[in-house]
C-alpha cells in the first residue's frame, strides 16, 4: 500500500464530512499500530480488500461523533441503528471511491458495519497497520488501513 | 498473385517485414510511411493485403484503415502494433481491420498471421 492508496481513503473520509456538514475534518498525525493493538471506537464501518493486497480498511468513530452528525442532519433519533447507518454510509463512501480509483488494482468488497468490539480480526497479522486519526469538531475518529501483500 | 502493401512509419519495421515475408504467391507491391502515402500507394496498386501500423504522422492508422476500406471494402488489413496500443488496435478492428499482430514479432509469427489472413473466409 503506498501513499497514494492511503490518500484515496483519507480523502474520501474527510470529503464525506465536508460534504455533509460544511465543516471540514482534519487529519491528525498518522502512525503505525501492531496487530495486537486494538484501535476501535463505538461504531465501525469496514470494507474488505482483495487483490494485490489483502485486508481491511475501517473507519471507527465514537458514539458522540455519530450523534452529532445525526443532529447536524436534522435527525433527532439517535438509536444505535441510526448511528450504525451513519458509519455504514461513511464506509459506503469509502468503498465507492476506492472502487472508482483503485478498481483496476483491487477488489473492494461490499462494506459492513459493527457496533462495539468486533468478533473478528480486523488487523493484518503479518504487517503493521496505518492508523490515521481524523478530527471533526471536537471528536476524534480513526481510519485504519490494514493490508498485507 | 496476391499483393501486399506495408504501412509503418518506422523504416526498420518496414524493412523487417519486407525481408521476412515468405508466403507463396504473395508479392510486396509497396511500402508507405503514413496514412496519406498508404492511400496513394493503395490507389496505385490496389493490394489485397495491408499490414498497418497505428501510430503514424499524417493520418494515423485508424484513419488509414477507414480510408483504405472505403476504397475497397474487402481489403484484408492486419494491424501491426505494440500491446500498449491495445485500445486503439481494438478500435481499428472495429473499423474493419481483420487481425492484429503484436510488435515485436518473429518472422514465423508474421508469416503465420499473413497466411491466416489470406485463408480466412468471412462467410
Amino acid at each position, binding site marked *: 500500500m503506498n501513499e497514494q492508496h492511503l*490518500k484515496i481513503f*483519507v480523502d474520501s473520509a474527510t470529503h464525506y464530512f465536508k460534504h455533509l456538514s460544511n465543516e471540514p475534518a*482534519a487529519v491528525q*498525525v*498518522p502512525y503505525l499500530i501492531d496487530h495486537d493493538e486494538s484501535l476501535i471506537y463505538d461504531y465501525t464501518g469496514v470494507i474488505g480488500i482483495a487483490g494485490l493486497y489483502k485486508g481491511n480498511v475501517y473507519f471507527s468513530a465514537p458514539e458522540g461523533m455519530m450523534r452529532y452528525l445525526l443532529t447536524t442532519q436534522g435527525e433527532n433519533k439517535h438509536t444505535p441503528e441510526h448511528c450504525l447507518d451513519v458509519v455504514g454510509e461513511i464506509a459506503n463512501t469509502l468503498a465507492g471511491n476506492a472502487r472508482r480509483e483503485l478498481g483496476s488494482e*483491487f477488489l473492494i468488497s461490499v462494506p459492513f458495519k459493527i457496533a462495539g468490539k468486533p468478533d473478528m480480526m480486523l488487523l493484518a497479522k503479518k504487517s503493521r497497520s496505518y*492508523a490515521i486519526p481524523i478530527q471533526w469538531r471536537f471528536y476524534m475518529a480513526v481510519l485504519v488501513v490494514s493490508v498485507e501483500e | 498473385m496476391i499483393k501486399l502493401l506495408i504501412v509503418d512509419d518506422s523504416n526498420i519495421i518496414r524493412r523487417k517485414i519486407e525481408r521476412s515475408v515468405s508466403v507463396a504467391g504473395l508479392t510486396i507491391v509497396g511500402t508507405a510511411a503514413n496514412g496519406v502515402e498508404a492511400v496513394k500507394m493503395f490507389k496505385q496498386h490496389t493490394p489485397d493485403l495491408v499490414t498497418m501500423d497505428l501510430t503514424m504522422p499524417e493520418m494515423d492508422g485508424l484513419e488509414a484503415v477507414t480510408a483504405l476500406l472505403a476504397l475497397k471494402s474487402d481489403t484484408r488489413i492486419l494491424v501491426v502494433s505494440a500491446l500498449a496500443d491495445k485500445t486503439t488496435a*481494438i478500435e481499428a478492428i472495429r473499423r474493419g481491420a*481483420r487481425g492484429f499482430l503484436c510488435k515485436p514479432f518473429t518472422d514465423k509469427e508474421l508469416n503465420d498471421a499473413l497466411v*491466416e489472413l489470406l485463408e480466412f473466409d468471412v462467410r
Partner: protein
Amino acid sequence: MKTSTAHARSGLSKYRTIVVSIALFIVFDLGVLVMNFYISSQITKDAIGVNLAGRQRMLSQRTAKTLLQLQNATQNSGDVEKPLEELRKTFNLFDGTLRSFNEGGQAVGGDGKPVILERVDDPAGRAAIEKAFAVWTPYREKLQPVLTGDVPARVAALPDVVSYALANNVQILDQMNFLTTALEHMASAKADRLRLIQVGGITLALMNFFVILFHFIRQLRESDAMAEAARRETQDILESVSEGLMLLDRDLKIGDQYSRSLETIFNRQNFGGCSFPEMLREVVPEKIYKEASDYLDILFKEHVNIKLVASLNPLGKVHAYFDYGQQSKYLAFQFSRVHNKDRKLFHLLVTVKDITAQVMLENELEQSQKQAEEKVNMMLGILHVEPPVLREFLDRADRSLREVNDTLKRYGSKRRARDDQYGQVLQDIFPIVHTLKGEAALLELALFVDKAHAFEDTISELRGRANVSGDDLLSLTVKLDKLMSDVQAVREMVERITSLKETFDPAPATTEAASVKLPKVASVAPAPLLASDEFQRLAQKLADDQGKQVSLAAHGFETLALVGEAAATLRDALVQLVRNAVVHGIEVPQERTRAGKAAAGTVRLHAKAAADGYEIICHDDGRGLDAERLRAAALKSGRWSAEELSGWDEHRLRGLVFESGLSTAEAVTTAAGRGVGMDVVKRKVEALGGHLAFATQPGHYCAWRITLPGVLGLDQLGFKAA
C-alpha cells in the same frame, strides 16, 4: 463431424420416402378421380340409352295406336290429318332411334334436342335390335305408302299395315323391352365397376397412408433416439470436462447448455440466459471488464479473424475474485466461433480454465527468485559488519523507530491544540532519524543510510512548507513502516547468518581476534568505544563522496570502552563530530592547495583523562567556522531578519551552529546539509552530563571538545595517556 454427415444423409433418405409416398398418394387419388369421371360420363350416356330404349317401347305402342285411329278416321270419314301427322312423327322418332342404336349416331332426345347414341355392342342388346329390325323392316315398308302416298294409296295400304301391326306389335314391344333391360344391365355393371375402382383406389391410398404413417413414426423414433444419444453424449462431455464451457449468442447471453465445471469455477449455478459481461463484472476489476467488453464486441464482427486477435484478449490470464473478495482465482478464457450449418450465424464458444495453481507456482518461483536476489543484496550490504555489532545496531534502530512511532502516536491521539503541532512533531522525530542515519553510515549500511536519508528528506521538505496538515505526514508514516520492515528483514537475516556461523564454527570465542572484535552484546567485558579503523572508514568514505582527501588519526580510544546506552550516545556524538569535520571543515584539494595547505586534510580524534573525568577532542585543519556563512544560512532560514542579524557579533553568530535546522552546506547529501548536527551532539553530550565547546580560526582549524564527568559509571575504565 462424422455424426453430422451421417445425420444429413439419413435426413435426405427420410425426405425421399416422404416425397415418394406423397406422390403415390396423389397418383392413387388422381387415378380414382379420373376413372370416376370417365365412368360416370359413361353412366350418363348409358342412362340416355336406357331412357331412349324405354321410349322405343312407348313409340312402338303409339305407332300401333295411331294406325288404328287413322283407320278409324278413314272409315268414318273423320279428320285424317291429325292422326297421320302423329303417325309420321312417331314413325320417324322410332325409326331414327332404332337406327342409332344399331349403328351409333345422332338421335332426338327426350327434350327434343339431339343426343349421340353409341352403337349397342352388348350381345343381348344386339340380338334384341336385330330381332326388332326383322319385324320392323317389313312393317316400315308397309307403312311407307300410308305416310307418303296419296289418299287412294293410303286407303289401299292401310288395312294391310293395321293387320301387320296388330300381329307384330307385341313382338316389337318385347324386343324393345329386352333392349331396355340389356342397356340397364350394362349401366349397372358399369356402376359396379366404378364402385369397385373407387374402393380399390381408396384402399390403395389408405394403405399408402398407413405406410407413410408407419414410416414416419419409425423415422421419428429413430431420430429422437439419435438426438437423445447425441444429447446424452454432449451431456456426458459437459458433465465431465474439466474446463468451463459455454456458448454465447450475439447478445452475449449464456446458452442453456454449459459444462458442470463452470459452476465450480464461478462458485454459482444457473448460468443459462445470464449475461456473460455482467457475470464477469462481478468477479474482475472494472478496467478488465471494460477491456473485455470491447474485445467481445470485435469477436462478433464477421470480418474479424478470431485467431488473429487472440493476443488482444484481456482475459487470457485474469485475476478473479469471488465471495466479495474472500476467494481469488486466476482464470484463462479462450474464445472460438461455432458456426451453424449455413455458416451465417455463429455462437462464441467460451473455454474457461482455472489456472490458479499454475500461476501460483509461477508467482512463487518469481517471488522466491526476487526475494533471493533481495536477500543476496541485503546480505552483501551487511556482511562486512560483525553480527553482534549489527544486532546492537538493529536493536537501537528498532528502538529509534519505535520512538518515532510513539511520538507520532502521542501527537496523533491528541486533538489539535495549536497550529504548529506538526512542526513540533517534525522537530521531535528529526534527531532520532538523523542519529539512526549516522549510526548506519558508521557501519556502512548503505541500505539504511539511504532510507533514513529519504526519511530526512521528507521531514525537511515538510518543515520548509508553510502549511502542513495531518495527511501530509502520511508519507512519513509510510516510510517509517518500510524502514521497520527492513530492520525486521535484516534481523531475520542476521539470525540466519549467526546460526550458520555457529554451525560451522561452534566455538567462536576461542580465537583471540574474536574475543577482541566480537564481544557478545550482553558480555560484561567492556568493548572498545570505537575501533579507530571504524572512524577511519567513515572519514574515508565521507571524503570520497565529496571528492576530498583526508587522514584521520585517533588516539586514546583503544581502552576507552563503554557499555550500554552511554556508549551508544557518546559514539553518536563522535560520529557526528567526525562527519561535521570532513563535510564542513576539510576543503577540496584545490582549495587547500590554493590556501597553501597540504592537499589532504587531517582530522585528529583525541581521548584523554582529565581532572574530574575525561575529555575528547576532535580537531580538523579545514576552513574553520565562518561567521559570515552562518549569518547567510540564518538569513536563508527566514527565522531572523537581516536587520536582526546585522547587529550580531561573531560570537553570537558562531552560537548559531547549535541552532536546529541551519546548514551551511550548499547541497543536501547523505553526509550533511540538513542543518542538524551540532544541536544534536550538544543534546547528547548534555544528556551524559557533559559539556560541548568549540574553538575555531577561520581558514585554519576547528576543534570541538567534549568534556565528560567521571561519574558515569565509567570511571573504572580510566583514561590512558596517549
